[in-house]
């Protein structure tokens, strides 16, 4: 009997089960205690619970609002949606500019030109070693100092205005004719894809290259613009009313400071990813391309970059995720995205901390999951085949 017990005590599987049961019990105990205390605290402080608050009137105005219908009379749920849209807009803007700057700096860092190379290095070392929050606050304070007040706005052709509150652009009025513009854009893209495919086929069969850039410009850009202009091109212009501009598209200075800081900060990481990607390509590839008689630029475009990107893109996608998460620092300057609106203003009004923080986290978790899904698909596609 005793030896049997002893052998049980030293059995690895039994130990594992006992340990896990213990872990679950301990966690369940703490969770129960926390839940119990929470209910007690909520009751004592007279805080509501549940998600009923989402249907209450929000009662506050939002600075930046792009597509959605929103007014102080809207519900908290609508404010939540505005927050999500604004987070996505600043993230996408940041991702676009960070990629462009990062690509330029990353290639500049590999340049054979000493001055260009050193400048890229200095840029990277300066901006990646300063906390992003500090950069946001710095550029925001500079923008407020340098830009004029609304009455003395800088204006361009009396339709674009820039002042210390933001940038004001004319907005195309989306009437019935807007659908014609959209349709012409789609037709243009389809036609271009068709032409591109045919020219690729011709290249495969005969080796003759046709330049399709004019087709692209004509079909995808010019066609919709012509259609738009032929319908009279109605624009809503921003007009100075009282202390500020009304109408048109309004991009706040908070938005600019945030998008600008996120772009130049994340660009340093993207540049480093691109550099390490290019450096990961074997020297033999470059030499082989040269031996085939490819020019430097063609060798880069056709031989080096496709191989470098396989290494560089996963860290770059991770940086996109970081940028999206860092956009939550808008709270420091008051750009009205998810954290500012929801975990800031709504939380102060409603006081239901648990539900609100949980919903906020859920949005970011969803974004993270989607991005890591994209990353996984990419990695699968990029695996070297037949290895």
């Amino acid at each position: 009997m005793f030896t049997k017990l002893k052998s049980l005590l030293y059995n690895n599987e039994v130990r594992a089960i006992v340990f896990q049961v213990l872990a679950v019990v301990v966690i369940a105990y703490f969770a129960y205690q926390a839940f119990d205390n929470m209910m007690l605290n909520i009751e004592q402080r007279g805080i509501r619970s549940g998600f009923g608050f989402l249907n209450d009137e929000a009662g506050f105005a939002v600075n930046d609002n792009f597509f959605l219908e929103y007014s102080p009379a809207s519900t908290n749920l609508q404010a939540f949606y505005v927050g999500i849209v604004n987070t996505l807009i600043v993230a996408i803007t940041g991702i676009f500019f960070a990629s462009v700057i990062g690509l330029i700096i990353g290639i500049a860092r590999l340049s054979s030109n000493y001055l260009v190379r050193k400048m890229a290095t200095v840029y990277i070392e300066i901006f990646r070693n300063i906390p992003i929050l500090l950069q946001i606050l710095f550029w925001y304070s500079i923008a407020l100092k340098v830009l004029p007040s609304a009455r003395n706005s800088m204006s361009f052709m009396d339709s674009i205005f820039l002042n210390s509150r933001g940038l004001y652009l004319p907005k195309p009025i989306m009437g019935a004719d807007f659908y014609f513009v959209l349709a012409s854009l789609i037709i243009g893209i389809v036609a271009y894809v068709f032409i591109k495919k045919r020219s690729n086929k011709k290249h495969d069969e005969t080796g003759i290259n046709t330049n399709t850039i004019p087709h692209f410009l004509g079909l995808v850009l010019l066609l919709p613009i012509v259609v738009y202009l032929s319908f009279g091109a109605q624009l809503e212009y921003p007009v100075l009313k009282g202390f500020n501009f009304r109408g048109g598209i309004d991009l706040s200075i908070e938005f600019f400071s945030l998008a600008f800081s996120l772009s130049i900060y994340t660009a340093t990481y993207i540049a480093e990813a691109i550099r390490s990607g290019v450096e990961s390509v074997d020297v033999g590839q470059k030499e082989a391309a040269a031996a085939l008689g490819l020019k430097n630029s063609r060798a880069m475009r056709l031989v080096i970059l496709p191989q470098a990107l396989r290494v560089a893109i996963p860290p770059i996608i991770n940086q996109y995720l970081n940028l999206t998460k860092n956009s939550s620092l808008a709270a420091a300057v008051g750009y009205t995205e998810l954290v500012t609106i929801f975990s800031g203003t709504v939380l102060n009004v409603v006081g239901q901390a648990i539900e609100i923080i949980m919903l906020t986290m859920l949005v970011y978790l969803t974004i993270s999951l989607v991005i890591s899904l994209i990353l996984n698909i990419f990695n699968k596609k990029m695996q070297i085949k037949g290895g």
Partner: protein
Amino acid sequence: MAIYSLKETKQPPQSQTKAVLWLKDNLFSSSSNIALTFVALYLIYLLLPPILNWTIFDANFDLTADNESCGREGACWSFINANLKMFIYGFYPQEELWRVNTMFGIIVALVAFGSFIKKSQYRAHYIIGSFLIYPVVAFVLLYGGLGLEIVETDKWGGLTLTIVVAAVGIVASFPLGILFALGRQSKMRIVRFISVVYIEFVRGVPLITILFMASVVLPLFFSAGMDFDKLLRALIGITLFQTAYIAEVVRGGLQAISKGQYEAADAAGLSFMQKTVLIILPQALKVSIPNIVGSFIALFKDTTLVLIIGLFDMLAIVGAATSNSSWLGRESEGYVFVAMVIWVILYSMSRYSKKLEVKFSTEHKN
């Protein structure tokens, strides 16, 4: 028979000597390269003069000047001088500053002594002992007790607070991170599940939401009598956050170890604890040291976020100092100063991590 006299060796042509050759190779090798050089020079011409003018040529270096007499064209560096104590110590009482200085002094002495006894057999004891005893000493010095006057944490601030938050985050998250990394690699399903959920959850959300959670949700989980210190809440948030990142770094190290090491340890009859502590972890940690330093650098950058939940780290001091009516409108000077201090710290840390990477790299170099 003709006799040839030795002719003098000619100097290489002017265009082949050092400086000119260098310029030719690096700046003017081709037409596109020349164009690039001029674009770069133009950029420097655009950017450098305004920066130099503001920071140096138009700046006022009179350290006794007040806000009015300083002028508005350039930087006013007397602002930094006047608020230097606040930037370093926050609102820590004037007559107790020696305590903060002593705390920093002890750590310098500890590190210096540590490098002095590099070859001693007691070095490991010394390091572990310091890690156990020093936090207690530092806490007593900063907070008070044992005859020292109590200084509440809302008086802490500036660089001191930045370093306290970063140091506590680093020290506390390290063992927790190792535990979660082991948990994620464990064969026990439930343990693995808990670890994976925790790590992926924390890595999927921004630090600021975790700080919000620690500062407004966490107090709800404890009975009403427990009064939670604001700094403590921030520290819990930072530690929870950093733990997940350390766990991932250490997991990378664990995965880099060959299976043979596990099997050899099992074959030698080592218990799970012996295997983990004596065989696996030393190798895994050694591999992941550069990445661990990298994640500490990220943590140091992230400590600035505590200003959003109302703590006065170095960055928040800029706001506090410029909201004082005698220094209105001097944010730029403050931000530039703080940026320079943090930059120096971060840059030296990242240099150090590069050095470690070379030192610990066991990969084949080609």
